C-alpha cells in the first residue's frame, strides 16, 4: 500500500530557431546539442524501461516550437551533418590522445556514443523523434503534454485573445502531431494567471502545474498545503511543485549535479582546443561547447579539474537515485501521518537539465524509475492525470499568481533589460485582434497574410527573448529576433490594412518562419481582454 505519490514531469522546450539561409549558426545548435545529449538519451531510457515492462509512468511535455523543429526536414538534414562533423572530430580525438591513460578511454567513449546516436537517429528513429513518443504513450509508459504555442509568458500578455491564441495554437500543434488533446498543460515558466483557465477548460485540458506558492497561497488556504492539488474555479486541477524534489536535483549547492564525480559542464574541447583543429565542428569560428568533455566537477569552488571517471559517475547516479527515493519515502510517511491522506509530490524539471547540463541525468532517471519499480518502498510513481482515480474529490480554491522564476513572480521577464518589449507586444496584440475582426472573412492572399501575421506575433511573444535579454549571453540575438518578428508583423499589418499584400514578401516569410502550418488567424479574434487585466 503506497503512502504517497511521486510524479516526474520533464518539460522539453527550445525557442524556434531556423535560419534558412545559414547552414550553421550558434543558436541552431541548441537543438542539435539537445537532441544528442537529452532527447535521444531520455527516449532511449524510457524505451528500455518499457521493454522491461516496469510499472510507473513519467510525463513528458514537448513544447510546440520543439515539435515543429523536430519535424522539420531541413533541420533534420542539418542535424545529421552536424553529427557527422562531431563523429569526425571524435575520431580525430581518439588519435590525438592515443596512449594517454586518462583521455584515451574517454575519447573512445565519446566516439562510440556519437556513432550510436547517429545509428539511433538515422536507422532506428528514421529522423523522427516524435513518433516514438506517440508509440510509448499509446503503450501506456508515458504521458505526453505540451505548452503554449511559442512558450509565451502568459501573465504579461495584454489580452485574453492572445492567451487564447497561444493556448489554442499550442494544443492544435500537439493534436496535429499526436492526434489527441493532452490531459495536462505546461504553463510556460509555471507562470499562472487566472485568465489562462477558461481556454484550458474549453480545450479539454484537465490539469496544470504551478510553482509551490501558487497553490500554497491560494484562497481559501489549502488544507493539504502543497501536497494535494486544488480545484480551480474552472474545475481544473492545479498541482504544486514539490520544493524538496526541486532542491535535491536542481540546487546549485546541494543538488546532485554538483557532485564531484559528475562530469564538468564548462570544460569542453570546444573551448580548450585550437580553432583550426576543431574545424567544421564549430559554427564558423565561434567557440561553442561540443559535448566532448574530459573533466569532472572535482570541486565546484575551484578551477582545478580532475579527469572524468565514467564508471564512478555511473555508480554515483545509482546512489543518488537511491537517495532521492529514500527521501520521497520519508516525506510520504511524514505527510501521510499528518494528513491522513497520501501526499502527491510533483517533480517538474526542464528536460534539458538531464543530459545537457547534468550528463548523468538520464542515467539517474532510469535508475530511479527502475529502483522504484523493483525495490520495496512505499511511494507510487504516477502521472498526474491518474491522480483523480485515487482522489476524485479535491478542495476548491483560487490559486495565486506566481511563476517558478527568480523570486517567484514576473521579475525575470519584466526587468530593466527587457521591459521595453511590452509596449510593442501589447500594441501588436491589439492590432492583431482588430485585424482579425475586420478581416475575418478574408480569403486567398489576404488570409495567408493574416495567418503569417499571426505566426510572426506568436514568435515575437516567446518567453525566451525576454529571458535571454535578462540573463543570457546571446542578448543581441534575442533583441534581433524580437525586433524582426515585430517588424515583420507590422509590415504585414500595414499591407493587410491597405489591401496591398506583397506576394513575394509573404512567400518569403512563409518560407522563413514556417512554424504552425495550420494556424488560423481567427484565434486572435475572440475579444480583447478589456485593456484591462495585465496580470
Amino acid at each position, binding site marked *: 500500500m503506497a503512502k504517497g505519490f511521486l510524479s516526474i514531469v520533464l518539460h522539453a522546450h*527550445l525557442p524556434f530557431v531556423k*535560419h*534558412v*539561409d*545559414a547552414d550553421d549558426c*550558434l543558436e541552431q545548435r541548441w537543438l542539435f546539442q539537445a537532441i544528442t545529449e537529452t532527447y535521444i538519451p531520455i527516449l532511449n531510457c524510457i524505451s528500455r524501461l518499457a521493454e522491461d515492462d516496469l510499472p510507473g509512468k513519467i510525463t513528458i511535455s514537448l513544447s510546440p516550437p520543439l515539435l515543429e523543429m523536430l519535424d522539420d526536414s531541413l533541420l533534420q538534414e542539418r542535424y545529421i551533418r552536424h553529427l557527422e562533423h562531431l563523429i569526425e572530430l571524435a575520431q580525430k580525438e581518439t588519435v590525438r590522445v592515443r596512449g594517454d591513460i586518462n583521455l584515451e578511454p574517454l575519447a573512445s567513449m565519446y566516439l562510440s556514443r556519437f556513432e550510436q546516436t547517429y545509428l539511433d537517429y538515422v536507422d532506428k528513429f528514421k529522423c523522427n523523434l516524435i513518433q516514438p513518443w506517440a508509440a510509448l504513450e499509446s503503450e501506456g509508459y508515458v504521458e505526453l503534454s505540451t505548452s503554449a504555442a511559442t512558450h509565451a509568458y502568459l501573465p*504579461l500578455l495584454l489580452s485574453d485573445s492572445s492567451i487564447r491564441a497561444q493556448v489554442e495554437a499550442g494544443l492544435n500543434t500537439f493534436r496535429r502531431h499526436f492526434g489527441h488533446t493532452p490531459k495536462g498543460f505546461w504553463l510556460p515558466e509555471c507562470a499562472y494567471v487566472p485568465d489562462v483557465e477558461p481556454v484550458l477548460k474549453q480545450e479539454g485540458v484537465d490539469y496544470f502545474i504551478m510553482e509551490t506558492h501558487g497553490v500554497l*497561497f491560494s*484562497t*481559501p*488556504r*489549502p*488544507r493539504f*498545503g502543497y501536497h494535494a492539488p486544488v480545484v480551480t474555479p474552472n474545475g481544473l486541477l492545479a498541482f504544486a511543485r514539490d520544493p524538496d524534489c526541486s*532542491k535535491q536535483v*536542481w540546487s546549485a549547492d546541494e543538488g546532485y549535479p554538483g557532485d564531484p564525480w559528475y562530469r564538468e*559542464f*564548462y570544460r569542453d574541447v570546444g573551448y580548450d582546443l585550437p580553432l583550426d583543429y576543431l574545424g567544421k565542428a564549430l*559554427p564558423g569560428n565561434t567557440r561553442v561547447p561540443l559535448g566532448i568533455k574530459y573533466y569532472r566537477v572535482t570541486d565546484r569552488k575551484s578551477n582545478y579539474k580532475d579527469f572524468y571517471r565514467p564508471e564512478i559517475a555511473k555508480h554515483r547516479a545509482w546512489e543518488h537515485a537511491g537517495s532521492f527515493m529514500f527521501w520521497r519515502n520519508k516525506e510520504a510517511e511524514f505527510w501521510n501521518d499528518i*494528513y491522513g491522506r497520501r501526499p502527491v509530490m510533483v517533480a517538474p524539471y526542464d528536460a534539458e537539465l538531464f543530459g545537457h*547540463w547534468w550528463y548523468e541525468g538520464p542515467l539517474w532517471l532510469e535508475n530511479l524509475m527502475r529502483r522504484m519499480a523493483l525495490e520495496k518502498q512505499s511511494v507510487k510513481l504516477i502521472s498526474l492525470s491518474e491522480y483523480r482515480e485515487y482522489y476524485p474529490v479535491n*478542495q*476548491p*480554491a483560487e490559486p*495565486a*499568481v506566481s511563476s*517558478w*522564476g527568480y*523570486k*517567484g*513572480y*514576473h*521579475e525575470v521577464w*519584466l526587468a*530593466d*533589460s527587457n*521591459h*521595453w518589449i*511590452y*509596449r*510593442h507586444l501589447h500594441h501588436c496584440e491589439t492590432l492583431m485582434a482588430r485585424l482579425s475582426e475586420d478581416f475575418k472573412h478574408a480569403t486567398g492572399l489576404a488570409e495567408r497574410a493574416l495567418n503569417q501575421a499571426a505566426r510572426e506575433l506568436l514568435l515575437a511573444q516567446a518567453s525566451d527573448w525576454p*529571458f*535571454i535579454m535578462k540573463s*543570457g*549571453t546571446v542578448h543581441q*540575438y*534575442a*533583441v*534581433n529576433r524580437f*525586433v*524582426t518578428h515585430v*517588424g*515583420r508583423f*507590422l*509590415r504585414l499589418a500595414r499591407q493587410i490594412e491597405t489591401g496591398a499584400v506583397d506576394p*513575394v514578401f509573404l512567400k518569403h516569410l512563409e518560407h522563413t518562419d514556417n512554424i504552425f502550418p495550420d494556424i488560423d488567424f481567427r484565434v486572435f479574434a475572440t475579444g480583447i481582454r478589456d485593456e*484591462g*487585466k*495585465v*496580470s
Partner: protein
Amino acid sequence: MWVVAAAIAILLLVLAFFRFRQSTDVRPSTGIPSKRPQTGMEISTGIGVPPEEIDPDKAGKVHRQAGVTLPAVPPPRQDTDDSSLASVKLRKIDLPKEVELAWEAGGLIEFQTGAWAVAKDPSEYSDQDPESKPARGPARKKPSGEVVEESYSLPQRYGIDRLVLIARDPDWVYAYWEVTHERYRQMYERHLRDWGLSRPVLRIYDVTPGRGRQKEMDVFISDHADNWYINISKPRHTLMAELGRLFPDNTFLRLVASNVVTLPADRFSDKISADWPPVGWPDRYHGFQAQIGTSSPGAWGNEADG
C-alpha cells in the same frame, strides 16, 4: 581698450554658441537622433540607458519615503552654462514642456531608428535582421525570386494614448505610457495659464472590490520618462492609475487612465474553508517564503556563464 575687446570677444562667443545650438537642433534626414544639449525639454528615448548597462539589482533605487523608485535614468548631464537660472525660467514661462515634447515626439522621434528604449548609437541596430547575422553572403535566393528584407526598427510611438500597468510582484507595479501630441495640445490649450507650473504625476488608486475607489499615492515622475517602476507593496490589492498633471492649487488633470491590475499574494490566505480546514498550519510551512523561486538553472545561451 582691452576691456572693450574682451567684451566683444565674449559677445561673439555667446552668439556663436547659440548659432551652434540652433544648427544642431535641425532634424537630420538620416534618421540619426540629433545631438541636442540635454535640457529639460529633451524627450527621453525610453529610459535612456542601453539595457545591458543596467544592473538589475541596482536599477530602480528605492526612495522608500516616497514609496517611489526612480528607474535607472542617467542623471541629466550638467550642461556647462545652459542650465542657468535664466534659461530655466524662460523655459517655464514660454515653452510648455509637453508641447515641446509632443512636437518633438511627432516630428523627430517617430523617424528615429533603433530599438525602442535603447538610446544608443543606432548604427548598432542597423543590422537587425538575424538572418543576415550568420549569413555568409548578402544575396539570398528564395523560391519565389529574390527578397531582401530591410532591417527593421521599431517605432518609438504608436500614436495611441495609453497607460498600461503591470503587476510585477506583490510589491512592484510597472507602468508604461504614451500620450499623443494631440492630447497634450488639447489639454494644454485648455489650461494655458498654469500649465508651466504643473507637474507630471502618476496617480495610483486602490480599487480593490468592496472598498470603493481610494487615492493611494501620487508618484511624481519626470518628463523624460515613458515608464516607471512603482514600489507599492499592496499584495492582493487591485489598483489602477491615471497619468496627468498636478497644478499648484492641487487640481489634477488627467491625460490618460490605465487598466486595472491585482497584485499577487505574498503569503497564505487568511480565509479558511469550513469544509477544508488546514492541517498542520501554519508552523509546518513557517519560513516557506525564503525558499520560493528556486528555478531553472539556466536556459540555452548561458553556456559561457560558468
